[in-house]
């Protein structure tokens, strides 16, 4: 089971990084979304995957029985999902506004903040 998850994570990371290497914003964004999910699966796998009992304390016990699943990664992933989702939403709007204003989604053409061929600063007066 761990091996399957590890391989899935590897594929997710590969696809995410490959897309992020693109020059086009929209591909980069899809890459970031996949990358975020790769990390979520990494947390899930890092918490060890067991197919045993769910982490619920029985009514007459004080603690979890041995061999129950680890509940912590779910809390961590939930946090990470909320964060990455909100960031992705913000980035989509930002990319769209940038496309509207700059008329391109090619990062090579996005040179408004750092214009090409600015020339040297004055060397004396």
């Amino acid at each position, binding site marked *: 089971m761990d091996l399957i998850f590890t391989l899935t994570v590897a594929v997710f990371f590969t696809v995410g990084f490959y897309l*992020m290497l693109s020059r086009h*914003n929209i591909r*980069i*964004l899809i890459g*970031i979304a996949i*990358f*975020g999910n*790769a*990390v979520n699966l*990494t*947390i899930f*796998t*890092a*918490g*060890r995957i067991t197919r045993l009992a769910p982490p619920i304390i029985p009514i007459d016990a*004080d603690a979890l029985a041995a061999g129950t699943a680890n509940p912590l*990664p779910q809390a*961590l992933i939930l*946090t*990470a999902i909320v*964060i*990455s989702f*909100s*960031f992705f939403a*913000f*980035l989509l709007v*930002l*990319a769209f*506004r*940038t496309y509207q*204003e*700059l008329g391109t989604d090619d*990062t090579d053409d*996005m*040179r*408004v*903040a*750092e214009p090409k061929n*600015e*020339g*040297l*600063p*004055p060397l004396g*007066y």
Partner: protein
Amino acid sequence: MAIEHSSVDLSDAMILEPTALADWIITAPVIIPLIAGALLLMIRHETRFHAGIAIGALLLALLGHIGLLARVLETGPLTMTMGRWLPPFGISFTADVLGASMGLAATLSALVCALYSLTDIGARGRRYGFYGFLMLMMAGVNGAFITGDIFNLYVWFEVFLISSFGLLVLGSERRQLDGATKYAILNLLGTTLFLTATALLYGALGTLNMADIARVMPEVQDSIPAGTLATLFFFAFAMKAAAFPVNFWLPASYHTPRIAAAALFGGVLTKIGVYALLRTFGMLMPDQLTLLSTLIAWVAAATMIIGVMGALAQTDLRRILGFVVISGVGTMMAGLALGSVEGFSGAIFYAFHSILVMTALYLLAGVMNGLAGTYSLRTLSGLYTSHPLVAAFAFLLFLAVSGLPPASGLWPKVMLIRASIDGGAPWLAFAILLSSLLTMLALGRVFLLAVWRPAVEPSTAMVVSPGIGYAALLVLAVPIVWMGVYPEPFANVATKAAAGLTDTSAYIRSVFPEVVQ
């Protein structure tokens, strides 16, 4: 149900005694900006109250930081665990000298930026939520400095990151959208890599509490891929700190926002990356720091030199400052690479200096632009005759950032150079000196052109009264000169902060009182 099971011994899972009233001060630097931020969002359209609330909240947070620093200097690290769950299960806030002192410097810088924003941010910017974003960002920054849990550190990183996006695109100019796209994507990538490293660390150690990690790491580091983890953390934090070769987001974006926001970014945000590097490597993984020290030293030297060479090639004053920020990050990483208490304390002292001086330099650029109507060195000129006070501030700050007396840059650089020579890396000392020389050339040219050069063309710009700008610069100039003339107290705090990193026993005892070491 609860009564039925009253036989359960809660002391196995929870801290039963209530938190002492004085200990609540640890939450002050986070909770005050958080409440003020929420309040400002609620009254977004009542713009006349915004600045007052923001400045008041930052003053309170500053007082909280002063109290917290005094407390940790006297009694050692202070811990409060949320929800009273026993650590490592509950999320701990652990303030030590490093976190409290850097938080103090950052909050002072934010206060001055809020002061300067009175002239910089108009009613439109306020309605867009400048002060709300500012408050939430400072809550995230202070949370990052104070938290004692590495996953929580990630959460605070994201809190200040999303708020910084808001500050960066305020106004939605074309340049800002361009800069913000690069800043947002690369910084999100950096924090997500940090989360990846955290996930793998959790998989290897089964804990996220920093004190617990520091305790467990020496025992298990040979059976886990600790070097790989450390490299991943280094890459993620180096990206946040804008170290070469992953620094390109910074010069692409830091010159685009309003100057009050740029000053805060330049002063504070990269230092959080440096703080995180010091925390993870100095405290959690000292042996892996030794493993990576050569790499970190090369990265540090390259960041220093290439950063300042970028500054030499720029015409826009704000872009020059962006590259100077990068160069400063390299200087602090040199202290990290040395791995000794002396190196760490030099880096921490340099961080105090850099937070204040970089904020002041951006504000100075804002004042110059207000007077001359341009940031470009081609036309910026004649300030010496028209505004001698600007010339005086510029002179002081340029001395500070180049590391010359009587300003603050001298002593941290002396400490770092001594530590490099004592640590057997004289070439690193040479790199620090070379970068100082180049910084002096870059900013000396700014002084020559902007201040000494007679006015090249009569200014047609509307002159903005620099009164508030002078006040903001004066508030920063006091500690800057103080650090240069009487560095003793600052150096002591930095040394204590560094000692708290290398000797973790006090930090661990603060979280786990039952551990005897």
